[in-house]
């Protein structure tokens, strides 16, 4: 499979504060990479660095055949202001702005595809509602629909199911899985071990000084060895950590 992202000896952080260093991993077309680690281990920072929102403090990130406009992104929290007037449709469509280039308005295809994405996430009935008046879970779906609009080749998700009810979580994972099947590379931050085992092909685990990067099977085996209980059935919601 073709390499899409290659990170060598990457260091991340804020200003002079290094959060992580010496990180090596790569992502190929069609991969489903899960990033795991404790709160504060630098998962979101890594994602922001990959997206170019944050400067890497050292090392290199190489992209192959990826333009920024091929990328979809679901942030962990959107600091959208409490009083921002925006309808669901306006927000979902804004996933296409990068693809517009100099064209000032959305094309009919883009409108259609936004409509489809809203349907996929079951929010088509909310499309003219005001975003700030939705519940947290509904807002999450709106932002995922926006991410789907912009994700052509790769989708980065920062804890996509946080705040969703179990039914919606399962649906969300199905959507992500189908997207992955259709050839879109997925990078997802998650604390939910069941879903990692079920859906991902690769795992990147971030710890204080220990990293793990490899296929999901290696990850499971390694953790079973380390696990004193030798408990094969991971409990959902637990964070695996070396």
């Amino acid at each position, binding site marked *: 499979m073709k390499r899409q992202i290659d990170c060598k000896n990457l260091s991340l952080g804020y200003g002079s504060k290094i959060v992580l260093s010496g990180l090596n991993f790569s992502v190929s077309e069609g991969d489903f990479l899960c990033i795991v680690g404790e709160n504060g281990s630098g998962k979101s920072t890594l994602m922001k660095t990959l997206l170019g929102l944050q400067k890497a403090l050292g090392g290199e990130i190489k992209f192959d055949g990826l333009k920024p406009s091929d*990328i979809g992104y679901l942030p962990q929290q959107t600091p959208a202001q409490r009083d921002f*007037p925006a*309808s669901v449709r*306006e927000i979902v469509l804004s996933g296409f*702005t990068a693809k517009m280039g100099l064209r000032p308005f959305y094309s009919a295809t883009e409108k259609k595809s936004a409509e489809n994405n809203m349907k996929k996430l079951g929010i088509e009935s909310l499309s003219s509602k005001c975003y*700030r008046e939705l519940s947290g879970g509904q807002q999450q779906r709106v932002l995922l629909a926006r991410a789907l609009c*912009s994700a052509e080749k790769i989708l980065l998700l920062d804890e996509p199911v946080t705040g969703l009810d179990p039914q919606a979580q399962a649906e969300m994972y199905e959507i992500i899985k189908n997207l992955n099947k259709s050839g879109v590379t997925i990078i997802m931050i998650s604390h939910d071990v069941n879903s990692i085992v079920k859906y991902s092909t690769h795992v990147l685990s971030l710890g204080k000084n220990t990293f793990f990067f490899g296929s999901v099977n290696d990850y499971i085996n390694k953790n079973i060895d380390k696990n004193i209980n030798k408990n094969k059935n991971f409990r959902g919601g637990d964070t695996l950590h070396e």
Partner: protein
Amino acid sequence: MNDVLQTFQEYLSLPFVRYAFVVVTLIALCSSLLGVTLVLKRFSFIGDGLSHVAFGAMAVASVLKLSGFENMLVVMPLTVVSAVLILKTGTNAKINGDASIAMISAGSLAVGYMLMNKFPSSSNISSDVCSTLFGSSSILTLKSSDVLFCTVMAVAVLGVFVLLYHKIFSVTFDENFASATGVNADRYNLLIAIITAVVIVTAMNLVGSLLISALIIFPPLSAMRVFKSFRSVMICSAVTAVVCSSVGIAVSILLSTPVGATIVCADIVSFAIFSAISKK
């Protein structure tokens, strides 16, 4: 009543009254559109801040004995640079947007006032200061070149807002998402900073800095009380601004009240009306 209409018609037949109408309406339109973005980006004070910068810059210009058009060559670049600085610091968390505006505005007001005192260009400093804040009576002495300049500016601002509407929405709503997916957010922020500076400098020369801040914040805030999508807020804000400024000028002519202050009062009334509607 007929008397009033009669007087009004007489006034309207005077060219300088028509000029004032056109100029104020265009400025109100531009600043209300810009205002939606600025209010949502938490830069409501930028009107105040930048007009103080422009005041300081004008003091520098008058010390250099520049006048008229040359004036603008000093004032415009300085204000544009400050606008860029303010809007930039907003995104970097070390100094908050509001704090940086307060710093820059208080700083340039002080420097400007000191320069004006030390190197007075006219004998009456406090009237100079007063006219920068409240707009000189010059609003009724506008020339046709002022009208032309204002029209060109308004067309440019409107053009930007129509052609880049979706990008401006994207960058205002979620700058991180926009730049992560390949929208050049910095470029649009820079553009907004430049437009802001140009509108404010133009407007404060003509209508004074107090009025320009009001024109930037009142119409968007009124619109946001009632409307819940970005587009409807934009449209409502523009319409409100135009209506309020027209009513304001009309009233100020009929009751011979100060133009700027009357328009702001009209804006306050409209805000009260919109608030009442939203409570229903």
